[in-house]
């Protein structure tokens, strides 16, 4: 088998050195009744060609967004990732390295994580960032738990526009720790109202969590909410699912955010049917010791040369065990590297242009769709995704579009199934990858279906 270097001679020589007459001797501590006599009932080993064929068969049963006009978002975005990114992340020294516990031979990983942390802090307008978390949803849950630790209060207000997955994941953790979550209803037919959140903040509130652009695409002004929260001693957690938006929109750090939890998938990372993605987490210097996850810091070696190490480790599980800030061990590693490389290629001007193209394309499609009978645009504001109300149930329309080879958008009821009042609402996302032909195809198809 091509991955196993030993020959039978090697194995025999090694067994002799061990003083074992057979392989079974090494498993003497396993209860006899639990030892299997032979391989389990699954196929035997195959060569590479077979493996490729197997996966090509899986792939052939899916409609690829690369081959179809595709307008899907809702927290995962199709962007053009420059070819450079994928080649660099597959260098063996990046791909096959472990967590940088021996910094002398891990300066590559440590330096890029430091660059990543800096990029994330810059984009979000915050003072410090960690070396990534699993995704935006778990980062949000961790942000709420951090706010609870820092304020010693047990209640969190989650604004109505928060992505339902993010809410559900936060709820799962909160439930175990008896943290009360409060969420007002959301109504995409009207602009988001800060009062709905502000009215719920009290002296027991650890934090307010606000997503912008929200799940319906609406852009939220965090400042009035931040003022109200701070006045009651509550922290502000700002969430964004589309990191590219920060190339055009005001940074949460400039609006009073204390913690930012975001999804970084848009930069460097393929859609990959939902994972692996990269959670971004940033905060103020004052709160840094409460921050979960790994973090890289600058230092010097014994020769006085600048270098980097993992630091502030005593917050983490391997030292604090049950008193850790989180149980998290793994970060998003290679996904963070992909983000860093893509952001390095973009630079200031590239990120700004990318963001503007996204918004321009979204405006273009929004105007085209508003002209279609049976389509009503809901948003006054949006970055690259917006909600439309259709004259028919969105799930039906989406299936009809799929039959025509178009991935037309995400029905709101896919994320909020209990909201029958939103059955006709569709979330449409437009990025730089959508051509005029894509948009024409969608508009034409909708005209036929509705």
């Amino acid at each position, binding site marked *: 088998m091509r991955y196993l270097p030993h020959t039978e001679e090697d194995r025999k020589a090694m067994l002799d050195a061990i003083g074992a007459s057979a392989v079974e001797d090494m498993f003497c501590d396993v209860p006899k009744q639990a030892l299997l006599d032979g391989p389990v009932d699954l196929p035997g080993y195959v060569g590479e060609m077979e493996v490729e064929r197997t996966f090509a068969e899986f792939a052939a049963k899916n409609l690829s967004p690369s081959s179809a006009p595709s307008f899907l978002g809702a927290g995962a975005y199709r962007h053009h990732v420059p070819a450079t990114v994928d080649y660099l992340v597959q260098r063996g*020294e990046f791909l096959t390295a472990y967590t940088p516990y021996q910094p002398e031979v891990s300066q590559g990983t440590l330096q890029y994580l430091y660059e990543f942390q800096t990029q994330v802090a810059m984009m979000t307008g915050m003072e410090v960032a960690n070396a990534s978390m699993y995704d935006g949803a778990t980062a949000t849950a961790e942000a709420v738990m951090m706010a609870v630790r820092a304020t010693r209060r047990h209640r969190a207000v989650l604004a109505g526009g928060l992505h339902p997955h993010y809410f559900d994941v936060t709820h799962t953790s909160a439930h175990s720790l008896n943290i009360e979550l409060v969420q007002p209803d959301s109504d995409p037919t009207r602009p988001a109202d800060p009062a709905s959140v502000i009215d719920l903040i009290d002296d027991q509130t650890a934090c307010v969590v606000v997503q912008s652009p929200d799940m319906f695409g609406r852009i939220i002004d965090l400042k009035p909410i931040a003022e109200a929260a701070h006045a009651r001693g509550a922290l502000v957690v700002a969430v964004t699912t589309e990191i590219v938006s920060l190339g055009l929109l005001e940074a949460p750090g400039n609006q009073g955010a204390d913690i930012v939890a975001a999804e970084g998938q848009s930069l460097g990372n393929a859609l990959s049917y939902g994972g692996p993605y990269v959670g971004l987490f940033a905060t103020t210097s004052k709160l840094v010791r409460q921050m979960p996850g790994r973090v890289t810091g600058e230092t010097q070696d014994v020769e006085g040369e600048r270098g980097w190490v993992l630091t502030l480790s005593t917050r983490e599980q391997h030292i604090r065990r049950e008193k850790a800030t989180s149980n998290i061990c793994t970060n998003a590693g290679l996904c963070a590297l992909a983000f860093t490389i893509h952001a390095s290629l973009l630079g200031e001007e590239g990120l700004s242009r990318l963001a503007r193209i996204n918004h321009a394309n979204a405006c273009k499609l929004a105007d085209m769709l508003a002209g279609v009978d049976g389509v009503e645009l809901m948003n006054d504001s949006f970055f690259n995704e917006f909600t439309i109300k259709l004259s028919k149930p969105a799930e039906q329309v989406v299936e009809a579009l799929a039959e025509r080879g178009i991935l037309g958008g995400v029905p709101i009821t896919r994320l909020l199934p209990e909201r029958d009042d939103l059955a006709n609402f569709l979330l449409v996302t437009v990025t730089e990858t959508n051509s005029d032909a894509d948009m024409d195809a969608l508009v034409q198809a909708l005209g036929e279906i509705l």
Partner: protein
Amino acid sequence: MADMSQGRSNVPVGGSQATTVKTISGSKGLDFAEPLIFEMGEDGRTGVDLPDVAVSDDRLGGMRRKDAVGLPGLSEPQVVRHYTRLSQKNYGIDSGFYPLGSCTMKHNPRINEKVARMKGLGDLHPLQPVSTAQGALELIDTLATWIKTLCGMPAVAMSPAAGAHGELCGMMAIKAALEDRGEADTRKRVLVPESAHGTNPATAAACGFSVDSIPATERGRVDIEAFKAKLGPDVAGIMLTNPNTCGLFENDVIEIADAIHDAGGYFYCDGANFNAIVGRVRPGDLGIDCMHLNLHKTFSTPHGGGGPGAGPVVLSEALAPFAPVPYVVHDADGFKMIEHKADSDAKPFGRLKGYHGQMGVFIRALAFMISHGSDGLRQASTDAVLNANYLRAKLQDVMSVSFDGMCMHEVLFDDHFLKDTGVTTLDFAKAMIDEGFHPMTMYFPLVVHGALLMEPTESESKETLDLYIKTLRGLNQRAQSGDAQFFKDAPVLTPRRRLDETAAARKPVLRWTPPDA
């Protein structure tokens, strides 16, 4: 090959080679002095060519960004060179032997990378209609079947994003099962061996449990009498790693399972060390209720400098109803995904992650499993255990093995052999780095002093192991001869020498800042 290790050192006496060679550029041959991107960037440089489109403020809700983000501008060649140079400062499995205990640093096949990037797999959107992603769901279901079969368990939760996340999933399922029985308020104590990985107690605490530590015996296993004495009506369960963190199989595991069940509790198994037994033992036959797997350990998905991973959790009949959403179901109409509690016939405890799970990691793990097949996987675990015992057999006369008898896929030493040499485990490890080996895991598990935990994996040839053994024996000889300073100075041949971790923690500098900020 000439034996270079006797007598002459590669390093000039009295200091490191590095200080005696100063270059003008700062780079030394292939060891490049590479600044941060922020120190190289210039306005006006870009690595992408995108049209410059003007947009009005009309639909931005008054929230247009006024300040600059601050990102540096670099051309594409500069970016390629920068990250190429950074990669050259790293050690990976592709570079050499990486015997990090508990991490399973096995070969990462590139076919896995190729199939993960296939059109129709790598580019699928998680929320595209399920009817357009039947192949993706079938893939997840196929992986689930392989996992259940290898583990001998009826159900598996696929969504956790890492091992620690899988631990959270397992413990939350246990908590949900207790709530369902009306016992969540009375059963809040979880028993955890003192040798456990730190994620175990951290996870228990994250679920609102208290942690009660179980001591180990002289044989390195859980003290079963001490364990039984701690049982009571307030016990929620046990979190046991098997094979354990000392690289040993817990002989009494079935008795432990029976005892915890009799006491009304559940058995969580930490499956980080599954590489020792995959294809030879099914954890389901040992009486477990749930176990997480680390796909990035046992199933070769790349460690990527720290992530991403995936931590699916196999579940018993008792815990299966509480598996989180979403999960895949296969019926006469094809594959579906249950994404919401309301759509489930069971009692999911909630959602753990955005979307469906680490699909990119699933693809790579399944490719690995299919490549090996059931016979190949059995051979892989056999070779992993063989390699670890070979290291044990060839080093035990000079280095202090912590526990007698056969080990599993990893072997634990302690620093007893370095007593009176003035050389610590850390120093010994740093000297290994200069010899071109990544050190083993140090100072874990905490149950022995100055632990050195070595896990060779099945990917290593006998030649590599023999060179490693020879090197360690040589280093030990040097330590015993009293040359402690050599070890204190190490490493001297790496891009950076020992770094000041105290300064990094006292005055944390966690990002680059513009000079005049």
